[in-house]
């Protein structure tokens, strides 16, 4: 047995009842989460290949930012009181709105439950109520993420976009597999006009891998969707789901493409989870499981070091083991992109991310850049000169001397000068850790004002909703006893 | 005051010593004059309360000031106290009483009249200079305090005029002014009144500031 890192509460992979669990470091420096179900026996899963990284990362405390409203009482204990309850540590930074159960694919790796017979669509009035709840909770709603299913299959999809825009949401993202976009140029054009962004799943360039992961050949369609979004100035976040031995060797190529395509703003790498209708049956041995730090190391290998582990910081708005974030400055002269951490201290980047999940122009960022410029200026390193030159060009774009630009143009210039790489590790029943869950800031938002962390939603709560399940499950007797509850508090 | 009346605005004013002049002004302009001794705290309070009760004004000018052409050795504690009472405290009491009331009515302008913007170096009577510094610093803070309710507070720092308080300045100082100021002359009440009227009626975006109208010194 190895060294205990921390106790927590997890779930049985079969019956999903809450179980006390231990996270330990083994001799080979790997980190394992172990638990035992009275009915289904002992279970353990590897959480990380690097105990030192795991411990150091977990030690980063997220900025305390509890939700203003907690509609659910603390009753069963985490994770059975979501809504949120008073023990939750983070307000919603990324509101996720599931607007349809319909999907035009049936991906083996899909981690959500969808249902195409008797499809359910959210009505617009319900979305209006959700926005109102969010406004009450957050003051302003600057970001909303639509998901499904495939959101474009909602017959009134455009109305949702307009409602969001009219409510002042300035960053609307739509999760999509891209098939619809590839075939529907006017739709892409309209998205551009409305300033909406697409979160495009993109797992591989290899047709064979494609078939294994998504069930059909989609590469061509996705590249076409990328071309069209570029043509109509629609910003894109690429969402590759990393599966070990399948596509993890492609991460460098995907990142390179992201750097080259001007409208790709972010890459959000997910680690595979075995939840959802696809996820639970795909790869029964779960050999494709990959941990956060492995993804970071694969990135370093496949980018030949222009992006490494040290370039990532945790998100201050979430549990550190959930989000790792790197920002990169693009070199207009064609040199490799420069991670922000190469010209500012990691703490500074971390601090700049405290307000929002994404980096936005702020006083903190400006100060950090100003410090960076001074430091680069007094430095003798050759790389410093190149970076300073890039920053000079950026300032020139923000404050052009030969013409007046609007604030919107300036913001766009600023956005286009950099790219972000997020590594986001969702949890499934195996890896479930209530300590992480209670610091989640991505929540699925419902009409009744409840907000449920997406991992809890996908693993537990969605099953309760008839809209998504052929045979909805009752809540059952899964919640823990008093002892478990105390563990949850401790977490 | 005549500059305001000339624009067809209803004006009230107060006076203390120059009864004959006050009457003449009332007759000439139709403005209502009231006697008020600014060193009489109770009277000032009562007056301000009455003004608030009648409905806060849109514009308030504070022009009252006292000084004596005395050297440092000759200044008494009473001179000091009286200058502070009239030049400083009365302006403070006025802004404290009327500022919020004006704000409650939707905002307005207070213009304080003084003599220094803290940029000049002049051999002024010490007690007078002290109150002028007080007034200009107070203007800055009043601007901050009353800005949020939409009341602007500014000060005009006047150069010596051929009348009024300038007669309480040392004669040599007035002569120097005539010789060395940019315009090489003293001002007139009429022309500085136009500056006051401009600030009181046309300014919408400046507050807490001292504007000089002094012929350039």
């Amino acid at each position, binding site marked *: 047995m190895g060294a205990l890192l921390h106790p927590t509460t997890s779930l049985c992979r079969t019956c999903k009842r809450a179980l006390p669990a231990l996270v330990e470091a083994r001799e080979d420096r790997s980190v394992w989460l172990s638990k035992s179900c009275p009915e289904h026996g002992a279970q353990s899963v590897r959480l990380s290949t690097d105990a030192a990284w795991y411990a150091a990362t977990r030690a980063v405390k997220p900025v305390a930012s509890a939700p203003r409203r907690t509609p659910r009482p603390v009753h069963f204990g985490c994770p059975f009181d979501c809504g949120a309850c008073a023990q939750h540590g983070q307000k919603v930074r990324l509101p996720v709105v599931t607007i349809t159960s319909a999907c035009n694919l049936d991906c083996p790796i899909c981690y959500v439950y969808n249902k195409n017979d008797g499809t359910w669509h959210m009505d617009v009035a319900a979305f209006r109520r959700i926005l109102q709840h969010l406004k009450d909770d957050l003051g302003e709603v600057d970001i909303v993420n639509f998901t499904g299913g495939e959101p474009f299959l909602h017959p009134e999809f455009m109305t949702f976009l307009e409602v969001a825009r009219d409510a002042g949401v300035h960053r609307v993202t739509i999760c999509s597999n891209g098939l619809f976009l590839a075939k529907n140029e006017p739709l892409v054009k309209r998205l551009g006009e409305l300033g909406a962004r697409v979160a495009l799943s993109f797992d591989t360039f290899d047709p064979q891998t494609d078939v294994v992961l998504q069930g059909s050949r989609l590469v061509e369609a996705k590249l076409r969707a990328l071309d069209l979004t570029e043509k109509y100035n629609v910003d894109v976040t690429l969402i590759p789901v990393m599966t070990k031995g399948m596509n993890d060797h492609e991460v460098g190529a995907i990142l390179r493409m992201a750097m080259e395509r001007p409208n790709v703003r972010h890459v959000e790498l997910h680690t595979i989870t075995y939840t959802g209708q696809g996820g639970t049956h795909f790869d029964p041995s779960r050999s494709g499981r990959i941990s956060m730090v492995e993804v970071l190391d694969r990135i370093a290998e496949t980018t030949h070091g222009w992006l490494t582990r040290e370039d990532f910081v945790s998100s201050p708005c979430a549990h550190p083991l959930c989000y790792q974030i790197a920002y990169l400055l693009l070199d207009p002269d064609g040199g490799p992109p420069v991670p922000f951490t190469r010209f500012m201290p990691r703490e500074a980047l971390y601090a700049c991310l405290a307000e929002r999940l994404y980096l936005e122009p702020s*006083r903190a960022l400006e100060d950090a850049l100003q410090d960076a410029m001074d430091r680069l200026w007094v430095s003798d390193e050759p790389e410093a000169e190149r970076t*300073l030159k890039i920053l000079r060009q950026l*300032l020139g774009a923000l404050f052009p001397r030969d013409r*007046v630009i609007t*604030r919107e143009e300036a913001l766009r210039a600023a956005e286009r000068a950099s790219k972000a790489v997020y590594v986001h590790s969702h949890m499934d029943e195996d890896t479930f850790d209530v300590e992480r869950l209670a610091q989640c800031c991505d929540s699925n938002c419902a009409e009744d004002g409840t907000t449920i962390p997406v991992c809890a939603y996908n693993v537990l709560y969605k099953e309760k909703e008839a809209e998504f399940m052929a045979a909805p499950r009752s809540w059952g007797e899964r919640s823990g006893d008093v002892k478990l509850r105390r563990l949850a508090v401790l977490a | 005051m005549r500059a305001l009346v000339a624009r067809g605005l209803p004006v009230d004013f107060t006076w203390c010593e120059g009864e004959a002049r006050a009457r003449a002004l009332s007759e000439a302009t139709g403005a209502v004059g009231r006697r008020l001794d600014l060193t009489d705290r109770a009277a000032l309070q009562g007056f301000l309360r009455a003004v608030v009760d009648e409905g806060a004004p849109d514009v308030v000018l504070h022009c009252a000031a006292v000084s004596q052409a005395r050297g440092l050795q000759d200044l008494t504690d009473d001179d000091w106290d009286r200058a502070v009472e009239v030049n400083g405290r009365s302006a403070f009491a006025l802004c404290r009483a009327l500022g919020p009331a004006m704000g409650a009515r939707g905002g307005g302008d207070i213009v304080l009249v003084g003599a220094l913007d803290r940029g000049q170096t002049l051999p002024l009577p010490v007690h007078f200079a002290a109150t002028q510094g007080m007034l200009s610093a107070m203007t800055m803070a009043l601007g901050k305090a009353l800005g949020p309710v939409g009341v602007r507070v500014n000060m005009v720092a006047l150069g010596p005029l051929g009348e009024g308080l300038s007669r309480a300045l040392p004669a040599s100082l007035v002569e120097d002014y005539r010789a060395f100021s*940019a*315009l090489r002359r003293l001002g007139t009440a009429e022309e500085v009144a*136009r500056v006051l009227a401009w600030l009181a009626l046309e300014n919408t975006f400046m507050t807490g500031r001292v504007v000089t109208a*002094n*012929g350039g010194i």
Partner: protein
Amino acid sequence: MTGRLEGTRCLVTGGSRGLGRELCLAFAREGARVAFTFRRREADAEDTTLRLRALGCEPQCFQGDVADGAHAQAVVGALTRAWGGLDVLVNNAGVQHVVPLALLEEPDWDLMLNTCLKGPYLFSRAALRGMIRARKGTILNVGVFSSERIVEAPAHYAAAKAGLRGLTDALAREVGRHGVRVNMLSPGLLDVGLGRMLMPHRVEEYRAQAALGRTGTAEEVARMAVFLVSDENTFMTGARVTPDGGL
């Protein structure tokens, strides 16, 4: 009804857009004759001209660089021939360039100082000959709030505008005895120029700092300027007027 600047002959440098344009329009509304200069933005200059015409004012419009002495001479010469003289000069032309010292190169410095400081000197000198001869006239230098106190501003910009303040004071002293007045107007963040380009959080910061809780409009600042250059203003010279919302 006659305007407050009826027949007054006004020249505004950098008048094709922003505050300069609003000054031209405000002066024209009060019956002034208006001329303005611009450097590059022909379409904007055309637009200003059309707006002035709509107010019944036929403007004179000159293209050139304020830091070019020959240009200054030519503009003032042409106006003297056309109008017989000049009553009001507003030195408004400027450049907006935001850059920290680390990136502040010599050409940036020169461009800034030339436009914001040498330009006003050249135009003032050209205009003052006629004004002193006529023993009448006024110059208004447009500064900026960052020259009034220490706020974050690019060093070359702050230096140029502080220099302009010195120029204002010195000129006021020097030409006051000829009946010519020189004042400075230093507005805060407005709905034109820098105020339109800055990132939202900077504008928010400004609002939070300003006692009046808002940024200004070019129009209200231009309205204040009317009095400063008019004949109503006889005793203010060497003065600084800082409409900045109470920073």
